[in-house]
């Protein structure tokens, strides 16, 4: 099977390429790169006017399967991924049951394979049941396919547990990923603490709730010499802490989300839960610091924290509604919206090169012999209509917004799984 991505501008910072070049994928791997490659029977993807990049990897998504398939399934979540321009996702372990055993992880990978869309890299739990007390079997999980560990959604409250976990797993290359929110400082907050929460009479969570956990986890990372990744950073202070840790030799990476780059904590005047998310949307000072940190290199990766829920669930009262919303299908448009000055090479680093490096997975380049995972996108404005999402989660604060960039075609393992607005599972794509 051959696929030829033809006529686009190839941006591959690892190979040092930014030029109009065709990419020929043969048997799942990049076979040739060159000017004007003849199709010779290959399936042709028309990339004229587009940027062609090594496959984008969203290193922070919630696929909800097993256990919450009314919100999302592996099939619908990976359909959303390829439609959004992603060839791979790392899925978080807060499923029911949690991804804390090799058997569950193997089953997730089997279902991802059956869906035949994006690659799925499971993130295993740090503690059993994400309960924060007993350690998960890291080596067995890694053998089953886990590429990192996290108790995402919460954080081990007990620093001793987290330190022991990091020590025990320190011989594994898999990073620990921290969702940083102190549960006591956060309390029953539904939004950021600030002038808006006080005016609205809503319980707010201060940036401090994030900062103290970032600081703690960076110190544990240093103590255990463990590779670490801070998920969805939202505050200027957390960014400063990460910079400081790097000066001390801590191997730490971090990500930011599209919603924290775009929105502020001014979206709750109607007391609806559409924008309720953890960590919460912050004020302008923090939002601007996040944007600057993406540009200055502090931030390694852009990740959506795709967290789909049913519309009925999100329509509940603010206190009862679940946190989060889908992000895969607006992501690249939102990043370009927030950071129009971001150069294409840096864009590809943040979405492909660095996520592949942090997770230790193949990809991040389209050099000959690399995986045949290709993201084709273009600067073509479009207006978000959440009803049209492939994800089951039809709720997003981006609904109705016009975004400047969109996915045009997605190639996974040499198969065109998204083109012309349609998702095509690999089996169909081959046939």
């Amino acid at each position, binding site marked *: 099977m051959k696929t030829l991505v033809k006529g686009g501008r190839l941006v591959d910072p690892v190979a040092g390429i930014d030029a109009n070049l065709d990419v020929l994928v043969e048997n799942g791997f990049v076979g040739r790169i060159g000017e004007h490659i003849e199709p010779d029977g290959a399936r042709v993807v028309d990339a004229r006017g587009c940027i062609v990049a090594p496959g984008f990897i969203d290193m922070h998504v919630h696929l909800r399967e097993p256990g919450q398939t009314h919100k999302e399934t592996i099939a619908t979540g990976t359909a959303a991924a390829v439609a959004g321009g992603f060839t791979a996702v790392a899925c978080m372990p807060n499923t029911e049951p949690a991804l804390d055993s090799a058997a569950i992880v193997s089953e997730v990978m089997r279902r991802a394979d059956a869906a035949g869309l994006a690659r799925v890299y499971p993130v295993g739990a740090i503690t059993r049941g994400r309960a924060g007390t007993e350690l998960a079997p890291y080596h067995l999980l890694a053998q089953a396919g886990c590429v990192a560990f996290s108790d995402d959604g919460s954080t081990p409250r007990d620093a001793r547990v987290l330190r022991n976990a990091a020590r025990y797993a320190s011989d594994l290359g898999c990073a620990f990923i921290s969702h940083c929110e102190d549960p006591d400082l956060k309390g029953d907050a539904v939004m950021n603490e*600030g*002038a808006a929460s*006080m*005016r*609205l*009479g*809503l319980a707010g969570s201060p940036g401090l709730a994030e900062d103290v956990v970032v600081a703690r986890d960076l110190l544990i990372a240093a103590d255990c010499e463990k590779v670490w990744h801070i998920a969805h950073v939202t505050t200027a202070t957390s960014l400063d802490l990460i910079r400081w840790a790097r000066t001390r030799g801590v191997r730490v990476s971090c990500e930011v989300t599209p919603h924290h780059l775009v929105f502020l904590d001014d979206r709750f005047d*109607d*007391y*609806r839960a559409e924008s309720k998310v953890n960590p919460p949307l912050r004020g302008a000072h923090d939002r601007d610091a996040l944007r600057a940190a993406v540009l200055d290199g502090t931030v390694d990766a852009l990740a959506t924290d795709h967290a789909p829920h049913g519309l*009925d669930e999100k*329509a*509940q*009262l*603010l*206190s009862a509604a679940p946190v989060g919303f889908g992000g895969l299908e607006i992501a690249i448009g939102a990043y370009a919206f927030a950071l129009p000055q971001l150069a294409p090479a840096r864009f590809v680093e943040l979405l492909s090169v660095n996520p592949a490096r942090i997770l230790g997975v193949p990809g991040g380049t389209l050099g000959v012999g690399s995986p045949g995972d290709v993201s084709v996108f273009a600067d073509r404005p479009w207006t978000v209509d959440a009803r049209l999402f492939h994800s089951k989660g039809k709720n997003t604060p981006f609904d109705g917004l016009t975004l400047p960039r969109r996915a045009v075609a997605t190639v996974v393992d040499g198969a065109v799984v998204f083109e012309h607005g349609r998702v095509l599972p690999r089996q169909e794509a081959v046939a």
Partner: protein
Amino acid sequence: MRTVPPRSLLDVDDLRPGELVGVLDRAVAFRDALPARDLLAGIPVLNLFFEASTRTATSFTLAEQRVGADVITFAPGASSLGKGETIADTALTLHGIGVRVIVVRHYESGFARRLADAFEGHVVNAGDGTHAHPTQALLDLMTLRQEFGRFDGLHVAIVGDILHSRVARSNIVGMRALGIEVTLVGPPTLLPPDFGAGELRIERDLDAVLPHVDAVMMLRIQGERIASGLLPALDDYTQRYQLNRSRLRALRDAAVILHPGPYNRGVELTDDVLDDPRSRYVAQVHNGVFVRMAVLDLLVNGAPVVAV
């Protein structure tokens, strides 16, 4: 620009300043002479109180009866309302039954807004969480005007647990709209430094404020603030913020003392305060009925807008 009265009263700023003054004028007229009991004749009004209330529920019920409404009172308790049923379904059901006005109190901030967005009728917010309590603010404003005959240039101190007070929030909104100078007084845990985004005056020293105000509004301090670690032992709070005999001496003779009730004797104030001739607690609750009559009349029937 809106030319008809607001459909619902969720907070004081649903009323333009002219409408606000109009409501107070109407309330005064009702207090001077009760109207015929037909202003809301045949209009079904539902009192929907998810949170216990004595004064506000009684005051609303009497107000509704005095304007001739068909009054339905319902404490949801274990019903499906606000639980499994969505707000939209609840609103649809109540409208289908024939309810045209809902007076609602709920323990969650924003409930009245969510209900009003879904209900094809009038919603009067009788208190939502720590957000707003507009009819309380209106009756406070009515009491102040009764006392001073004006709003502009008045200086009011609001003292205590500002962060958790829907009464304080609604009063701040109303007082600022009418040109009243507001000073907030309380400890940083109950009045964070960034409350009001720098647009409100915040003081920590009650004694420095008392001699300079026309009115002081003492908010209720709930015991759970100590249990949840927001306040130390009560005597540390009372030593700094309690209105008592010695602090009454610092208050001007012409000043008045307001309290939204229910008060905790010995906590935010002492018995001396309630016995003090400057205390207006009884006037406040008395005015409440007429203000609520005027609000119902405005929302359902409209009213002449007084130019400001």
